[in-house]
């Protein structure tokens, strides 16, 4: 998808912020509404300062930030039960509105499944159910094969079936 040569290192912090605050802001908007989203954006850039050394240039900076932001938002949501109060105050979180018409599996994933599966599986679920990405593209983003993604999604489907069975 990318034609430009991939960078081998992140740009300086000020340039990184200036160039990519928009993409981080929009990605965070999938998970959080304002006013919390603004805080999360700053958290992501603080996180980037900590983990920037892990950027190996295997992807574009934009793609890498997309992934870092997704992970940060998932961990943050998982670890913050108190945010239920914000949920009640500000309505449904933005990520309950996936870019595709939500299927039954998507609803199950968003409502409960992502909290119980391991972080990697939750991340794959977001890319698949919320973002509607193709398996091969998820694999490219995460640096694994499409086959691996297929297997992980099968695991996710089994977990969804088990959750549905428990709920019935």
């Amino acid at each position: 998808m990318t034609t430009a040569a991939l960078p081998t290192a992140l740009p300086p912090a000020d340039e990184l912020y200036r160039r990519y605050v928009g993409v981080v802001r929009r990605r965070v908007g999938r998970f959080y509404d304002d006013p919390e989203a603004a805080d999360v954006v700053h958290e992501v850039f603080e996180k980037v300062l900590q983990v920037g050394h892990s950027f190996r240039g295997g992807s574009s900076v934009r793609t890498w930030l997309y992934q870092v932001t997704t992970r940060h938002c998932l961990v943050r949501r998982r670890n913050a039960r108190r945010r239920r109060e914000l949920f009640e105050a500000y309505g449904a979180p933005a990520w309950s509105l996936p870019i595709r018409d939500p299927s039954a599996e998507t609803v199950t994933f968003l409502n409960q499944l992502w909290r119980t599966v391991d972080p990697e599986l939750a991340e794959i679920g977001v890319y698949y159910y919320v973002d509607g990405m193709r398996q091969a593209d998820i694999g490219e983003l995460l640096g694994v094969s499409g086959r691996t993604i297929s297997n992980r999604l099968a695991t996710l489907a089994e977990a969804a079936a088990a959750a549905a069975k428990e709920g019935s």
Partner: protein
Amino acid sequence: MSPFTRDDHLSDLGLEMWVAGELSAADEARVQGHLSACEPCRLRVEAVAHTPLVPARPTVAEPVPANRPWGWAALGVAAVAAVLLAVFLGGGPGRVDGERPGDGYRLKGSGLSLQVVRATAEGAEPLSTGDSIRAGDRLGFVVGSTRPGHLVVLAVDAGGQVDVCYPPGGDAPAAVEAGPALPLDAAVRADDSPGDQRFVALRCDQGFSLASARAVAVGGALPDGCAREEVVLSKERP
């Protein structure tokens, strides 16, 4: 990596890559074709242009060297950028083509706008062509652009001297995203040279050299894929 979802709409990541001009030529063409036929995805693209920015933290901007050979000194970049953000995102007096930032995203035919802003004790004062400045005035810049690309802002004095205002200290144009009002991390101080002062913004889809930008600033032909805007200010005698 495909920029499309499983049901052939533009993915979030694909959208970001398209806006940034990071797609291959083939994917670029596919996205263009899809956008011409898919209103929901077009609306999402427009929403990207309306994404509110997050106020910058002072520690993010690095100061740039103050000693410039051309008499315009960069100064207080972080402070001026913060003022510009506050003015433009807060619905202050400075707007692109008279539009409030949240009300629309319409630029003139070139798809590029340039706003020069003077820092004041109260905040920032937008300046238009014909307005006057004095030696010592601190000036900042806000651009609006309908497309991502590469950007420079140049100052051209009455004697034809061309200096680079943005990117500060840069030796090449800086990448710019699409947006209705993008405060630039650059601030300059007006010197005491006499005559009109022109500020020229040049944005091109592809990278270009500062030499070619300087040529455009003094009346050279505008290359394909480029847009040019300028603001001409009068210099009051000290």
